[in-house]
């Protein structure tokens, strides 16, 4: 049988057995509505409370500051729109970056249509945001700064603590989309002066369809989903009980093994990166060499296009992703790769490999064994490569 290698953990992870085991009773045996007064309801409520405590402990915050959502996208939408609408008397200016996830970018673009002003900060060639630039962008109308903790495509980790400090000094709310960071790198909300933080369970071996927004006590924001009194009147809708239980277990597991996992993944990642850079010509690493997520490797291969690279890898059993236009569903390649200054044609040839718990050293060997041949085959088909080699032109 062909080897199957999953290297798309930034897209999603599998649900760990321990997590699934904790979730299962909450479908059939303990199925009460946490809002109900009776015993069935109270059992369910207890489970939600425990998950909230575990999530709070993982972030170094109080349980009352954790609000469960349907995932990272809802948490981002809620944080940004919620703050914007609740603070519009104070100002209409929001600062974010040009490399945010679409859950943040498109939310900000919606608010621009509603009369808000948004500054999209540039990043350097590694994808780093500069705290001084955040400071300079602040006006007396600024009500929110939203900067992602770590980038989902190129893995660059942003100077969150420094930006948080600037926001705190100026009395401006600071939100961070930490979907790629939580459970993978240390996140200390108190120490980093974070007011709002989004996370998603399926990025750290929990189930899909559940996430959370941390809201620091005292932060003024409107509810996003209106209805019942769940989540202390701030997020309506019957709780996703099994999902929330799964999130709680997954975040506890991820944080307790964080150091060890991070070390293991970083070593594998670095071997993958140096292996690719050493065995293939005309390739570059996207993102910062060291300030990057432990499992993230992102390359651009010149003269070839990302989707054909993904299909070829898939035929060899390797699951990866790309920022090429053909995989983004639009005509342009990834906004992140363009923001770090890559020309379109290089951005089209990007490949993201994101490692996780189930990957082994043999998986790295396998990728390093098949990737050079795939790149070679596609280059031999590419007219750009022929030009580069300075071969004969017959036009």
């Amino acid at each position, binding site marked *: 049988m062909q080897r199957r290698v999953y290297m798309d953990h930034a897209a999603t992870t599998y649900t760990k057995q321990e997590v699934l085991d904790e979730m299962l009773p909450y479908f059939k045996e303990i199925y009460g509505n946490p809002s109900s007064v009776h015993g069935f309801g109270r059992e369910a409520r207890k489970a939600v409370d425990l998950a909230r405590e575990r999530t709070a402990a993982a972030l170094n915050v109080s349980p009352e500051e954790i609000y469960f959502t349907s995932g990272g996208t809802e948490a981002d939408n809620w944080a940004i729109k919620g703050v914007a609408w609740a603070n519009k008397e104070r100002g209409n200016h929001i600062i974010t970056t040009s490399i945010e996830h679409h859950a943040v970018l498109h939310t900000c673009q919606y608010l621009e249509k509603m009369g808000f002003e948004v500054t999209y900060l540039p990043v350097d060639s590694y994808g780093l945001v500069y705290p001084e630039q955040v400071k300079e962008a602040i006006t007396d109308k600024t009500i929110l700064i939203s900067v992602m903790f770590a980038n989902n495509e190129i893995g660059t980790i942003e100077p969150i603590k420094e930006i948080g400090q600037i926001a705190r000094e100026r009395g401006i709310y600071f939100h961070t989309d930490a979907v790629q960071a939580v459970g993978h790198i240390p996140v200390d909300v108190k120490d980093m002066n974070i007011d709002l933080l989004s996370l998603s369970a399926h990025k750290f071996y929990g189930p899909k369809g559940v996430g959370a927004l941390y809201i620091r006590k005292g932060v003024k924001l409107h509810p996003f989903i209106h209805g019942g009194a769940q989540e202390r009147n701030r997020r309506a809708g019957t709780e996703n009980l099994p999902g929330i239980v799964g999130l709680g277990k997954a975040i506890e597991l991820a944080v307790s093994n964080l150091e060890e996992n991070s070390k293991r993944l970083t070593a594998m990642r670095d071997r993958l990166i140096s292996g690719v850079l050493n065995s293939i010509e005309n390739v570059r690493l996207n993102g910062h060499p060291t300030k990057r997520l432990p499992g993230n490797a992102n390359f651009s291969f010149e*003269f*070839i*296009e*990302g*989707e*054909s690279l993904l*299909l*070829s890898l898939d*035929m060899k059993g390797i699951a990866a992703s790309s920022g*090429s*236009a*053909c995989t983004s*569903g639009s*005509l342009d*390649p990834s906004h992140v790769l363009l923001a770090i200054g890559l*020309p*379109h*044609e290089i951005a*089209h040839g990007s490949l993201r490999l994101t490692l996780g718990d189930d990957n082994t050293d043999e998986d790295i060997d396998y990728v390093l064994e098949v990737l050079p041949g795939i790149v070679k085959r596609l280059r*031999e*088909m*590419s*007219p*750009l*490569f*022929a030009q580069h080699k300075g071969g*004969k032109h*017959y*036009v």
Partner: protein
Amino acid sequence: MYSEKVMDHFMNPRNVGEIEDADGVGEVGNAKCGDIMKIYLKIRDNRIVDVKFKTFGCGAAIASSSMATELIKGKTIEEALELTNKAVAEALDGLPPIKMHCSVLAEQAIKAAIEDYRRRQQEKQVNS
């Protein structure tokens, strides 16, 4: 998302390469958009006796190039000019809607190569 035929023509593309003494060469698309197709024709007595391609692009672009070259091989110039992007897509058992432009590129590349051939023929006549 791709048919088996697309995957077959992507993994085992027919007619990849260049023709050194081609009679007509057509190149369409640009690197910025992520698609470039270059088609080389060898023509004898108004018939396409050989055709090769080089493509920078996604799986559908490579498969469309491969299929289009297969479809015009051995055909007369007039027959090749009748090849539509729809015929290329149909021969591949369909393309996803977002990838239809790849078949359009293939049609355009062939037309460009034939145009180049005719231009060269005219130049030859003028010079002789």
